[in-house]
């Protein structure tokens, strides 16, 4: 009996935390989305969202987040796989994680220098005989830098899933005559799917609302919903419209979470 009261008491801080910092903000965002710029209750913001500009922007955000997630996955999976096979895997893992301790803005500024017309990347291209070209403020550099930033978050869950994999399953597969590719396709990949899914969630969701990189690296040639929210809140001070965009962002995120957490039967 006493135990139960105590447990409830211990739950209190967490419950409060969730209510104040998770539930209340979301409710506030939804609430604000119903007010127009003059503070009157209306649906204008939702009407505005369904115009060409914002729909195009949603599509853009979705497309870039998708690209960033897929490329991160393609690089992260083999990396994580190789990591689990190395001798000092914790050390290698640490070395991959360390760059994520550095502030994102600092990294973005560093890339402005590297990708600049007279930066290191272009000097290398010239040396290699390819000749310098514009790297900064292109779609390429935007996706490249975003992938660079998100890759540690993709590697970690996949690495954990691969590391936990019972090696006897692999021996069994090869004993039963499975080729290496079949083992990967039928045994390794399905068993690490959960790691892949959480990796995709951790990358896709923040990628959807990236905003500083769109200005610093893409020079506002890529406009995402994150940029629009920033502008609505800070410049226009139209909190209603900013909140409305945020509501749609939340809907997309919830949809993506639901999609990636469906468990297939029999796996």
């Amino acid at each position: 009996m006493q135990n139960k009261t105590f447990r409830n008491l211990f739950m209190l801080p967490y419950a409060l935390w969730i209510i104040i910092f998770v539930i209340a903000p979301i409710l506030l965002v939804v609430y604000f989305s119903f007010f127009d710029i003059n503070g009157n209750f209306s649906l204008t913001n939702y009407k505005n969202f369904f115009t060409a500009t914002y729909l195009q922007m949603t599509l853009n955000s979705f497309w870039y987040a998708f690209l960033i997630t897929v490329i991160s996955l393609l690089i992260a999976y083999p990396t994580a796989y190789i990591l689990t096979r190395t001798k000092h895997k914790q050390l290698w893992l640490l070395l991959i994680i360390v760059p994520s301790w550095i502030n994102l803005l600092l990294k973005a500024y560093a890339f402005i220098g590297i990708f600049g017309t007279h930066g290191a990347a272009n000097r290398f291209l010239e040396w290699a005989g390819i000749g310098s070209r514009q790297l900064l403020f292109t779609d390429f550099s935007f996706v490249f830098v975003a992938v660079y930033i998100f890759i540690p978050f993709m590697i970690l869950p996949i690495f954990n899933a691969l590391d936990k994999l019972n090696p006897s399953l692999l021996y069994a597969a090869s004993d039963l005559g499975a080729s290496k590719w079949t083992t990967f396709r039928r045994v390794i990949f399905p068993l690490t799917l959960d790691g892949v899914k959480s990796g995709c969630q951790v990358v896709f969701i923040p990628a959807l609302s990236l905003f500083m990189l769109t200005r610093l690296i893409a020079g506002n040639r890529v406009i995402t919903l994150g940029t629009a929210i920033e502008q609505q809140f800070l410049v226009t001070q139209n909190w209603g419209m900013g909140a409305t965009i945020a509501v749609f962002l939340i809907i997309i995120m919830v949809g993506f979470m639901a999609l990636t957490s469906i468990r297939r039967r029999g796996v």
Partner: protein
Amino acid sequence: MKALNRLFLSILAVSIVLLIIINRLNAAQGFSGDNTLTVYNWGDYIDQDVIQQFEEETGITVIYETFDSNEAMMTKIEQGGTTYDIAVPSEYTIEKMAEEDLLYELDHDKIPNLQYIDDRFLNLPFDENNRYSIPYFWGTVGIIFNPELLPEGIEITGWHDLWDPRLENQILLVDGAREIIGMGLNTLGYSLNDTNPVHLYETLDHLEKLTPNIRAIVGDENKMLMVNNEAAVAVGWSGDAADIMGENEAMDYVVPEEGSNLWFDNFVIPKTAKNIDGAHEFINFMLDPEVSAQNTEYVSYSTPNKEALKYMPEEMVNDERFYPDAALTDKLEVYENLGKENLAFYNELFLQFKMYRK
């Protein structure tokens, strides 16, 4: 369970101790006596020597804090909880702040040095009779360019030159709706305070034709990018131009002949002020011609203080790029507060412009 209880209690104890320490620290930092003055200004926008002089002369300790946008500054003052005695907003923000009753009226008797300010910069529409504000620096929006990187045969004298197809992928724009829409309106011969939707849509069409020439739309990074020879041309504020020219002598700046924006940053005393007498003293001190001259040499924006010009190097005062002649000054316009709805419309158009791709 016992261990858990103990852990829980010790966390509670540590939290309480931390709370007490924070309280003590807040109290120790003062914000209490008449002897401090909190100045809230743009980053790198004052000569620190001048502050020291003020402290020595008056015995008041200055706490100096900075902001990087009018909106952020205003939000912080609106929220309260701060004790800013002086803030330095731009003109359109002063109108908004006055409307929302965030400013104290100034006592002109306590600011005798006001006499040194050029009449051209007093009693302007955003603050009639200077009830709330005193101009600190002024400047223009214009074109910064690197003659060494310009394609041959191009001479830049006005906004229309930016549309030259030879400037393909060479222009950096500043990420501001008023600045860029205003540039478009001026190019077409309209006022940069125009709110007629027909004119604004025409402007958007015209701006979209500029897209092939635009390399990027950036914020304060434009200074670094220009200094690194990342682009040949940038649209920005005269103050940024002065900074860039300080780094690279070859750079040049032009106030467009079609007209442009004339902006002011101004001293105000926000309602958060605790040391109102000290704030008046500070404003008066900053208007002293010699102090103002020294400060202007450091900041390198244009000063409205006509007496200060006498103490400044001649090549600075005679530089028409920063002190344009009367004919050009007449074409410059100050931003009016267009109201929330028009401002939202400007921003919507600007967003559409940014979305437009070649």
